[in-house]
């Protein structure tokens, strides 16, 4: 149970700066997800919190105590790795108890904690097995159990589900969520999968090139992305971006107004989520169907607009299109996201003028 504060963290490998001045405060009991494309610095940040890398500059505080000069074992953290990192020559019980045994904890206490962890994770049946005799999901459970046994202040997860197959990933995601609800510890979870980020997080931190792009709850990030990068990263399928023209507060694509904006006249970037587009015979967006994907309950239409821009719309399963057909789409003005030349968000207003 602890807060985590990162203050002015920088990290360079030689001349390459991978983390540039990160400030972040994580509340007690919060599950914060670091998300971003590979190479964005999220894993490096996590390894610095763990103490596996030293920050070039800045301070790390856990539970109000400065920890960046402490070795990993004294920071009150436990980490779960992508490759599980179990000790192959020890059985499940040996893996779970190893850290405590090393810390010379009383054997009865080790037993008690190992049993609690194995109960929580349903490992009781396989305590005498070696890691190679376990499935991927079981191994990851042992890895999580090993973290629980240490009773840390902060749990660190480094892409823990990336090595599992799709079905198991969904299952383990729910398990981690349940675990968080049950033990309520502060958790930092690193992933490149925005679905994991959306479903697990109390708050999401979006990284790019060693910077934090935006911090917020999943819905804040979805509804009000601070810039085009966050907008494109959060949500699946990804947001469509169209080149638009702003004149007199009107945001226009192919001479049809989609929404209004306080943006100055000139070119702008218009972001439209596929799920917000809907069929409309008088819609402003008209294009030819290039690909049509039907998933049963829903379908995806890939359109090529008259000016060669492409667009994906998510429709319900009732519609069917053949490639080459014409399709007209509309979107509610309040669902439009307008970004300026630097990809920063510009506040939009509804076309009807009902908003101030």
């Amino acid at each position, binding site marked *: 149970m602890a807060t985590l504060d990162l203050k002015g963290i920088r990290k360079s490998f030689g001349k390459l700066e991978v983390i540039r001045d990160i400030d972040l405060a994580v509340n007690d009991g919060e599950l914060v997800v670091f998300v971003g494309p590979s190479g964005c610095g999220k894993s490096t940040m996590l390894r610095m919190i763990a103490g596996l890398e030293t920050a070039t500059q800045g301070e790390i505080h856990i539970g109000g105590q400065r920890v960046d000069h402490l070795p990993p074992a004294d920071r009150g953290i436990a980490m779960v*790795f992508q490759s599980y990192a179990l000790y192959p020559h020890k059985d499940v019980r040996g893996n779970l108890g*190893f850290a405590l045994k090393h810390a010379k904890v009383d054997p009865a206490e080790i037993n008690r904690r190992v049993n609690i962890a194995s109960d929580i994770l349903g490992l009781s049946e396989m305590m005498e097995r070696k890691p190679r005799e376990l499935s991927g999901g079981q191994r990851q459970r042992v890895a999580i159990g090993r973290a629980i046994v240490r009773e840390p202040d902060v749990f660190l997860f480094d892409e823990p589900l990336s090595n599992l197959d799709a079905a198991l990933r969904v299952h383990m995601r729910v398990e981690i969520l349940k675990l968080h609800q049950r033990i309520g510890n502060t958790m930092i979870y690193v992933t490149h999968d925005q679905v994991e980020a959306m479903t697990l997080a109390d708050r999401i931190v979006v990284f790019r090139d060693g910077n934090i792009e935006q911090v917020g709850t999943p819905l804040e990030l979805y509804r009000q992305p601070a810039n085009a990068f966050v907008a494109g990263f959060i949500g699946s399928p990804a947001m469509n971006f169209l080149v638009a023209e702003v004149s007199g507060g009107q945001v226009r694509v192919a001479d049809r107004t989609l929404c209004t904006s306080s943006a100055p006249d000139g070119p702008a970037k218009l972001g439209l989520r596929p799920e917000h587009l809907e069929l409309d015979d008088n819609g402003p967006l008209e294009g030819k169907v290039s690909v049509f994907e039907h998933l049963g309950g829903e379908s995806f239409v890939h359109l090529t607009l008259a000016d060669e821009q492409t667009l994906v719309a998510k429709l319900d399963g009732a519609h069917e299109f053949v490639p080459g057909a014409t399709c007209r789409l509309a979107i509610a003005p309040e669902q439009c996201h307008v970004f300026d030349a630097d990809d920063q968000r510009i506040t939009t207003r509804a076309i009807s003028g009902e908003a101030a």
Partner: protein
Amino acid sequence: MIMRERISSAGIHAVLLAYSALALFPLALIVINSLKSKRAIFGSPLAIPDAESFSAEGYASVLTNSDFPLYFSNSLIVTGVSLVLILLLGAMAAHALSEYRFPGDAFIGIYLILGIMVPIRLGTVALLELIVDMGLANTLTALILVYTAQGLPIAIFIFTEFLRSVSREIKDSARIDGLSEYRIFFEVVVPLVRPVIATVAVFSMIPIWNDLWFPLILSPGEETRTVTLGVQQFIGQYTVNWGAVLAALSVAILPVLVMYMIFSKQLIRGITAGAVKG
């Protein structure tokens, strides 16, 4: 299809069998002839010993009329201690090279491995001077030091390659569990690379056990002779006690054989580990 696979598998086995026969032939010849009388050795060298030609006089003279047990224990000590040092120092150096980044790490890595290309015997004169200056001439320590130096480059080379393949996350995980760097090496890394250790052990042991050169030059004294050197006493200028020579060599094969049997399972895993990543 099955027929073709069978034929190719039979072909492979034929080649392997032929090679095994070729490799085992000299060994068999030594063991067979060590059990024959001197006359039989020369009369019919390829014959299996029978009631008439059988003679254990070679073994008798080796075990009773010489200091063979002393030579044998000298060889065991030199080989054993050198091997422990090679494995320990080699694995630790390789761990440092593969795990840590420090200034000059690439240079040190190349420096340590360079010895593979330079035969240590080229430096015999310098080594002899050095050993004499240190007052280590005619000691087993001299041999142990030289053999350790001789075995380290290839050991470090093999270990570095394999230790690089040990998952970084396991070591990180041990760090978070609070293990010191030494305990990470001994408790986490070493158990993971046991097959490689066995491989390096066997490959390092054989040249040391078989070496005649350095015992002859550095430690020719009566007290410090190794088996290979001790056998020379049966080879006189005018007469050679072949029975004793062959008996001594037969006995000398045993430790290598025992060692190989102990490590063979690990060894095969070590050799194939790179090829079929299991």
